[in-house]
């Protein structure tokens, strides 16, 4: 009887050999190809069986492997003996960038991203070379690579993309790519990513500019890449957690939008 079979199925107890087929047939009518057993032993489906199938199929879907989490690479610039710029007399750039990277990491994780950090404390970067950072980024298969900087010379947030001339990957073919020009096929996507970030940061009531530059950390990346330079709005915001949080939330929101963007493709895994 379909009713009895449905009852046992609801409890998760298979009643006979062909119970799975029974669900599959009804599921197939609903367009779900989850279960496919070919043995024909069921009777015509009833409404109750369809209801049971509707209840059980989400569970069956949950058992299938989850899609891979999108990866964001965060590189807090400087670190180790390289302190970078000085925002104030006692505040080096490396302290601000690592604090900002850790803050942004938390916001991205709660939004469903997998975050790869090049280092987590300023001292971790003691043996990390610039090429080592880039290699880590290119291996990560990230959909966006964000290099974080800080400076006391200009107020607000400054976004930078590589100044390399844009080249189409299709035109490049099998030609070897120089290490310091790996970003060239990604420049168009990087510009789009910078545009999304600029719009989001502007909406967070923070002054923001966008331009292009020659930066070794950007030019070798094989992923959509943007360098973000965080400048204090005044002396009080040089190390202000609220200011950093506001900018970090805007960036995280923009990356969530970027996740569904057609240009959000992952890196090719270029390794030196």
């Amino acid at each position: 009887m379909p009713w009895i079979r449905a009852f046992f199925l609801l409890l998760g107890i298979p009643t006979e050999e062909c119970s799975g087929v029974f669900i599959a047939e009804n599921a197939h009518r609903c367009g779900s190809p989850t279960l496919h057993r070919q043995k024909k032993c069921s009777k015509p489906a009833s409404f109750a069986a369809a209801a049971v199938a509707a209840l059980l199929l989400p569970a069956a879907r949950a058992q299938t492997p989850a899609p891979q989490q999108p990866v964001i690479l965060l590189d807090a610039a400087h670190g180790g003996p390289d302190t970078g710029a000085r925002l104030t007399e006692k505040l080096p750039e490396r302290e601000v960038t690592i604090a900002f990277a850790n803050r942004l990491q938390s916001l991205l994780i709660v939004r469903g991203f997998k975050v790869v950090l090049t280092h987590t404390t300023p001292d971790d970067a003691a043996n990390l070379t610039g090429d080592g950072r880039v290699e880590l980024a290119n291996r990560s298969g990230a959909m966006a690579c964000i290099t974080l900087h800080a400076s006391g010379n200009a107020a607000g947030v400054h976004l930078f993309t590589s100044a390399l001339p844009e080249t189409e990957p299709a035109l490049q073919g099998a030609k070897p790519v120089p290490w310091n020009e790996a970003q060239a096929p990604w420049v168009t996507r990087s510009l789009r990513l910078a545009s999304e970030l600029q719009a989001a940061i502007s909406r967070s009531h923070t002054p923001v500019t966008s331009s292009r530059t020659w930066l070794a950390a950007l030019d070798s990346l094989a992923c959509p890449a943007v360098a973000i330079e965080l400048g204090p709005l005044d002396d009080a915001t040089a190390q202000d957690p609220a200011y950093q949080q506001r900018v970090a939330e805007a960036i995280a929101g923009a990356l969530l939008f970027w996740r569904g963007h057609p240009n959000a493709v992952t890196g090719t895994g270029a390794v030196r």
Partner: protein
Amino acid sequence: MIPRYQRILFLALMTLSVLMAGYLWRVHQRTIARLNSISSAATPIEAPGGATIQTEAVTFLLADDAAGTITPSDRQIALPNEPTIRLRAILERLFSDYGQTDSRHPLKFDGSAIADVFFLPLPLTPPKPPESGYKNTEEKTTPSPTAFTDMAARNGYMAVINLRQSFADAHPSGIEVETLTVLSILGTVHANFPQVSRIRFLVDGKTRPTLAGHFSLDRVYPSTDTTLQSTKEIP
């Protein structure tokens, strides 16, 4: 009792001392009057020989930190004719402007920012020797005297700007500020030397990875118009 001759000698010396003091006071007054007349003169000292200095319009691309822009600005300055000295004078003037306290892109450094400037004809590889028809090996390897000039006319020159290390070490650190400095130099060279197609930087004769920790300084840059409009979005 003082002898008479000693009294006469004393009075004579006393009289002489008074006369000398009076003379020195007179000379002192004259000197002060002469120095005052020189310092208060309003007219400038003219160049010897009556030479007239020719000034010409030079376009500088000036950076603005607050706006994040690079804008062209014309100035009238006197320049030498020799190209390398001319370029050096233009860049020195550019950095002199940035060294002012009221500059919109303030750079603090001691002395001169430029150690040397020179031009190289492009391409940097030597020209290919003729395929055949030459028996003399010297003729095969030696290009014609106008070869470099002809190539440079087609491909342009590379300007090599050798900065002083004291300037690079004192430069403020940050992507924005370093980018504006270099783009300002590139744009100024492009505006005044159209025959230059590539620009390269050295620091005290050596390559340096970054200007002040960010901007890559070891590349060869195209000489292009680097005018930068403001993209600042202020909420």
